[in-house]
C-alpha cells in the first residue's frame, strides 16, 4: 500500500449518473491494481495538502484499470466537484482482488438497489478471459445506463424486489455470483439475497455466492476496525478493507 498523488487528466460522462476519470502521473505501483482493489482518494492542492476537512473521510474509488496512455481509469458517480487539472491524493491499493474459480465459465453479477460500479469494473477482465457474463440490475440499480458496456455482456433489468424474468434459469446457469446491495443495511440485504438463492437453488456450494461489502471505509489499512465483519466459520472478525471487499456469503454472519 502506498500514499501517492495523481492528477485528473480527463473526465468523460458515460451515462446519466456516472463519469470516468482518467488519472495521470500515476505511481508505478498502481499499474498492477486488480479488479476488486480500490483506492481511497481525497482532492488536494498541488503541494499535496488537503483542500479541506469536509468531506472528512476519503472517497472510495473503484479503478477500471490502466489505459494505453498510462492513465488510470476510475468510475465515479457524476459530481461537478471533479475538474481536469485537480490533484488527488491516493491511498491504496486497498483490499484483495476478486477471486474466480478456475472452472467457472459463467459469471452472474447482481446489483440490487446499489450502484453497480464494483461489478462493472471486473467486466473487461472477465471478457478478456473469455467468461460469459450476465449483469442483473434490480431496484434502484435498474436505472443504470449500460450503453458503454460491451455488447458481450447480457444485461437483465428486473423490478423493485429481488426478482427478474427467468431467474431460476439464470441462477442455474451461473458458476459464480457476485452481488452488491444497498449499503444502508448490507447484512440484511445480503441475507435477503442469500434466502432468495436458497429458495431457488437446491444447493449453494462454497465459493459460489460472493457479496461485495461496502461499509464506509475509514482507514483502509485495517487499523480502525470500523469495517469488521463477524464470520460464521471463525471467531476472528475479518476486515472489509484488508480482507475484502468480496466475501463468500456462506461464511459471513448475516444475522
Amino acid at each position: 500500500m502506498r500514499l501517492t498523488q495523481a492528477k485528473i487528466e480527463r473526465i468523460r460522462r458515460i451515462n446519466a449518473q456516472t463519469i470516468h476519470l482518467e488519472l495521470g502521473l500515476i505511481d508505478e505501483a498502481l499499474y498492477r491494481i486488480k479488479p476488486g482493489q480500490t483506492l481511497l482518494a481525497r482532492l488536494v492542492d498541488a503541494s499535496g495538502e488537503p483542500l479541506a476537512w469536509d468531506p472528512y473521510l476519503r472517497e472510495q474509488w473503484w479503478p477500471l484499470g490502466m489505459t494505453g496512455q498510462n492513465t488510470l481509469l476510475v468510475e465515479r458517480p457524476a459530481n461537478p466537484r471533479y475538474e481536469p487539472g485537480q490533484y488527488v491524493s491516493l491511498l491504496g491499493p486497498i483490499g484483495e482482488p476478486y477471486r474466480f474459480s478456475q472452472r467457472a465459465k459463467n459469471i452472474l453479477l447482481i446489483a440490487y438497489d446499489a450502484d453497480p460500479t464494483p461489478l462493472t469494473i471486473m467486466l473487461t477482465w472477465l471478457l478478456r478471459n473469455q467468461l460469459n457474463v450476465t449483469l442483473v440490475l434490480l431496484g434502484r440499480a435498474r436505472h443504470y445506463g449500460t450503453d458503454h458496456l460491451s455488447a458481450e455482456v447480457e444485461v437483465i433489468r428486473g423490478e423493485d424486489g429481488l426478482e427478474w424474468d427467468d431467474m431460476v434459469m439464470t441462477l442455474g446457469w451461473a458458476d459464480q455470483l457476485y452481488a452488491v446491495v444497498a449499503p444502508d443495511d448490507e447484512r440484511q440485504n445480503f441475507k435477503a439475497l442469500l434466502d432468495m438463492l436458497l429458495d431457488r437453488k437446491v444447493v449453494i456450494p462454497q465459493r459460489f455466492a460472493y457479496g461485495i461489502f461496502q461499509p464506509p471505509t475509514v482507514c483502509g489499512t485495517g487499523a480502525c476496525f470500523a469495517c469488521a465483519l463477524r464470520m460464521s466459520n471463525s471467531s476472528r472478525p475479518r476486515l472489509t478493507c484488508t480482507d475484502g471487499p468480496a466475501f463468500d456469503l456462506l461464511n459471513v454472519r448475516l444475522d
Partner: protein
Amino acid sequence: MSICITRPGKNALYVSSPVMPAAGTFGFGNVYRSLLDYDTLGAIVTNPVTYQPWSPAAGQRVVALDAGVLMHTGLPNVGLKKVIREFGQVWASLPCPVIVHLVATNVDDVRKSAATLDHVESVAAIELGLPDDISWEDAQKFTTAAVRGALEKPVIVRLPLGDAFEIAQSVAEAGAGALVIAAPPRGTARDKSSGQLVQGRIYGPLIKPIALHMVQVLHERLPDVPIIGAGGIHSIDDARDYLEVGAVAVQVDAATWVQPNLLERIARDLAGRLVTRMSDAYPDEWHADMGDTEFRDRFSD
C-alpha cells in the same frame, strides 16, 4: 532527544519524540509500516484490548459528519492473551516503545491484564482507557488495579473527555504515571443512508479546542502529573499548541486515517528532525512513501 512522558522513577518511560498515534487509530502496530517511518514516532499505542475477546458491534458503525466522523466499532479484539501471542514478536521488532491500551471492563480483569502485560518484554507501558460517565471512586479503583498488576511498567490513564475534570486528581493519586487528555467524546448522529441514529465516538478537528482547554486547566491544577494531549490534532501547529499549554507529548488520532503522512510530519517537526523535502520534489515524494518511479527516473544515472 529523550523525553520522559511519565512521572520520574524506576518505571519511567522515555521516548525519542513527543508524538504517538492514539489508541484505536493504529491497529496493533504493523499496519502502517509501508506508509510511515516508525523511527520518527515516540511510541505506538495499540488498539484497545480486553481480557476476554470482544466481537465487532452490530449495525451501522460509521457516520460521516461535517469535518469529522462518528464511529462505534465495539472495540473488537481476540482477547489479551491471543493479542500478545500474535503481536508480541511484532512489537519486539518495532523501533519505538509499544504502549498497550487496556479497556477498563471490570477491576478483576484489569488487574489480571496488567499483571499479564507486566511480563511481556516488548511492552513498554500500559494505557488504561476509562469508560465514559465513570465516578471518581470507580476511576480510582480501576487505576489502582492496573498499577498493582503492573509492578514493572508505568500505567498511563486515558480519561473520558466529559469527566476529566472530576476524576483526574483521584486517578493521579491512585498512581497513574501520566494522563491522556482525552478520549474522543461520545455523540449521536443520524446516518443518512439508513436513517438510523448511531451512537459512537466523534473524531475531527473540532475536538481540539475542547481537549486543549482541558489540558491547559488540568496542567495548572496538577502541575506534577505529566499530561499527554490528544484530540483533534490535524496539523503541526495543533500539536505544538498542546505542548505550549503544558502537555509532555501528543497523540494523533483520526488524522492518521485520513492523511497518514501527517503523523510522521508532526513527529519529525516536534522531534527536531528533517521536515523539508527536495525543492523540486513532487508532492508525493515525501520520505516514507516516496514514489519509486519518479525517484528512479531522477536518480538512476
